[in-house]
């Protein structure tokens, strides 16, 4: 378990992620330093929030531009084959959805409505996009949560084992497994898993969050497993849980690979530190050294990666949701894109951008709380 001499690189690594960038950021430091001294943390949060809002604004512009560049006529998309020959119907649809105006004015209308909490009405569902998102987001959230928990448990576990057995056969096997995890096409894995576990073995019912006709638990969090536990509906919980197993495992596969690789590297890095040598020299048992002195410091960066992975997952469920009929955001986004349902596409993009910004903010704050050097520098 000793770190061999070949590990010099790891030994010499910068001690904490995030502590280095300060040096690379020479320009502008001097002018801002006075302000920072007064409210360093508040300023840090404010700047980050401001950047986040700008980013979201940018996303709406990008999404708006892209969706309006589509050659397909949203009018054609949302009227059927029969009405299409009636110019009056087309004109009515355009007027109703504000498709007559110039692009900037349409965008302006969208923005002002957005500020009033109105994301428009989906052209497919004829419901406010906000309501649609309210239905779909919990479904994807639940799936992504389950997947990230799974990926964390397995990925971190494997990563530690790999780090501890560095260079020996468990490490090598785990390396291949984790590389396989990031290499497998998720849509194919979903199909194969569905074929084996649902189609051939009949172990798992797939499709939907509950069996047909089942009444979802009272809406507390929107996550069926959590809600059913809170209301004590054990039958519903069992069903919601068992239906989530397959998509969650498939979704986790890629992220297990990522987290394993990351954990291994982070733990190895920590193991190379002086205080680990000191701890060993003190004669602490190896398990304690790893748990307390290697895993603990590595955990922060692992959680960071997990958080960001989670954010990516929330948006990246398109393929899994489509193959396994999970009624979440990914399926909604896919259908919206195919149907050129502009308000829905905009809504999805905006949501994903907000998640992205918020998670990054949280991660940075977390760092700031844990490591005061970051927020003070």
């Amino acid at each position, binding site marked *: 378990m000793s770190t061999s001499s070949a590990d010099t690189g790891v030994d010499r690594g910068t001690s904490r992620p995030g502590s280095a960038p300060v040096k690379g950021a020479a320009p502008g430091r001097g002018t801002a330093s006075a302000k920072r001294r007064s409210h360093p943390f508040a300023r840090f949060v404010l700047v980050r929030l401001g950047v986040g809002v700008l980013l979201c604004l940018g996303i709406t512009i990008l999404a708006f531009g892209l969706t309006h560049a589509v050659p397909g006529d949203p009018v054609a998309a949302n009227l059927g*084959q029969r009405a299409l020959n*009636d110019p009056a119907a087309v004109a009515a649809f355009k007027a*109703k959805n504000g498709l007559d105006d110039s692009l900037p004015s349409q965008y302006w209308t969208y923005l002002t409505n957005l500020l009033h909490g109105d994301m428009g009405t989906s052209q497919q569902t*004829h419901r406010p996009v906000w309501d649609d998102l309210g239905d779909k987001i919990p479904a994807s959230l639940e799936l992504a949560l389950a997947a990230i928990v799974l990926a964390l448990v397995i990925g971190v576990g494997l990563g530690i084992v790999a780090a501890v057995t560095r260079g020996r056969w468990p490490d090598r096997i785990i390396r291949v497994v984790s590389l396989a995890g990031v290499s497998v096409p998720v849509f194919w894995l979903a199909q194969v898993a569905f074929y084996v576990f*649902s189609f051939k073995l009949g172990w798992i*019912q797939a499709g939907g969050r509950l069996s047909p006709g089942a*009444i979802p638990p009272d809406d507390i969090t929107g996550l069926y497993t959590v809600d059913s536990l809170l209301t004590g509906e*054990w039958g519903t919980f069992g069903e919601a849980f068992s239906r989530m197993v397959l998509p969650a495992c498939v979704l986790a596969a890629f992220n297990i690979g990522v987290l394993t690789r990351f954990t291994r590297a982070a733990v190895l890095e920590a193991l190379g530190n002086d205080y680990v040598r000191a701890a060993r020299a003190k004669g602490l048992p190896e398990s304690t050294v790893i748990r307390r*002195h290697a895993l603990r*410091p590595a955990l922060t960066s692992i959680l960071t990666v997990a958080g960001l992975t989670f954010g990516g997952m929330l948006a990246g469920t398109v393929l899994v949701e489509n193959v396994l009929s999970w009624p979440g955001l990914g399926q909604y986004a896919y259908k919206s894109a195919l149907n050129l349902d502009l308000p829905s596409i905009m809504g999805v993009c905006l949501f994903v951008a907000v998640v992205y910004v918020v998670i990054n903010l949280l991660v940075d704050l977390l760092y700031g709380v844990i490591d005061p050097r970051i927020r003070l520098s």
Partner: protein
Amino acid sequence: MQANHPNGASRGGIGRRALAPLAVTVVAAVTLSACGGAKKSSDGAGGSGGGNDTLVVDTSFSLKTADPSRTFEPTGIFVTRAAYDTLLTFANGDVTKPVPQLAASYEVSPDGKTFTFPLRPEAKFNDGTPVTAKDVVFSFNRVKNLKGNPSFLLDGVTVSAKDEHTVVLTTEKPDASLPFRIPTPALGIVNSTAVTAHGGSDAAGADQSDKAEQYLNTDSQGSGPYKITKYDVSTEVVLTRNDNYWGAKPKYGKVVIRNVPASTQQLNILSGESQLSLDMSADQAAKVKGQAQVLQKPTPTTAFLFSNDNPAVSKITSNKDFQEAVRYGVDYPSLLDVAGEGSAQAAGIVPGFFTGALDASAAIKRDIPRAKAALARAGLNNPTVDLYYASDVTINGINFGDLAARIQANLKDVGITVALKPAPTQTALDSYRNGTEALGLWWWQADYPDASDYLAFAPGELVGKRAGWNEGANPAVTALAEQARTATDEAARVDAFRKLQEAMQQTSPFVPLLQTAQVIAANNSVKNVYYNPIWYVDVDKLG
């Protein structure tokens, strides 16, 4: 570094301790799901796969609205059928004879232009109020003035109330097909009081002023055997028995219609999770036979190919000899192989079981020398043309991408190079509607069970124009179409439609390919399954 993490040890401990409850939870969940199940509908009949009182229907959704007066898509038609009664209907899947529903009977004037419908006095809406002539007039005028997809059903029709319980429809020309259009679920009768109260309008300009659609999506206002109690356009629609129904009460208290891909439908029928499946392909149906009842019936859906007749779109495809080469170059039986069991070659554009259809023996047969000769006559040497189709649709289990690839292979044999130009339906519809596709592969599903629905293929008509076959392109065919439209005598109609289709076999840009087959698979416990070509099955009649 250590100093930054004074709680390291205790945190690690928590992690390990937290695993125990997690493990217990997992085990408990798996056990529970094995023996229990989620809370079901109010009657509480448990068990995975729905209680006895619940019917689960799997279908790939084609659904845009549950407002009957706007309904056009197959799933929407299926749903609104159950919630909205119509004046006439078809019983047990027999679409050759309209029978009374809300109307007690109907009467046609000798000139074929006036239709009188006395209403059943006992009929009432799901809120208990009686169905009156006023509601019928409102519903029909709303359909017309919404200018939506189904508006064409009432083209040239005027509706009026003779008294509180009698409705009179008058047409501009003699119209033998009207009684066949009346049963269309889009002409379902809505509760005019309730709909008006929620922003509905039947006046001119309703396409702008009517605001009742969202209301009707969540709260159906019809006189049908079911009420729509949940409507989600992408996942499921739930119908609940209408306790105020004026007719025979349906057996199933609750019907759950779920959006499920065809492959999963097969699985669900076999596992018993669903009782009815509407979209399996013939290949899948073959695997289900024996374990479930399977109906394979021809549909009024015709898949067709066209070579655009408009020289401005393509000099090649508008050439009559090229069109002949395509017509005789397609290997029709090989397309049936792609489509699977139950589908049939379409001899003409009108499906086989409608009066006025061509005999199967009159169908075009592949003739490679003739096709090559035609191509040579056209002076075309290995021409390349674009074939447009909707890439994301599967009609009755037939993937149009596969069909297009097969046509491409067929035409390669006669020396025509076809470049495939797929697009998602919504984008493809655009070029189709604008008539800019050189070759197009599309389908036409009957809106109502009468041959007159296929007159849309005549020059200058809806589909004709999409194939660049504009008004005046072929006066002889136009005249034949007009004869078919206005003939009232049965024999004369049949004759007119046959002549029209024979003429189209000679000169039209259209190549009817095949008539698809509908697969309906049902759990053996479900009785009285009859296929209706317009709305799949009568849910309320299932036993």
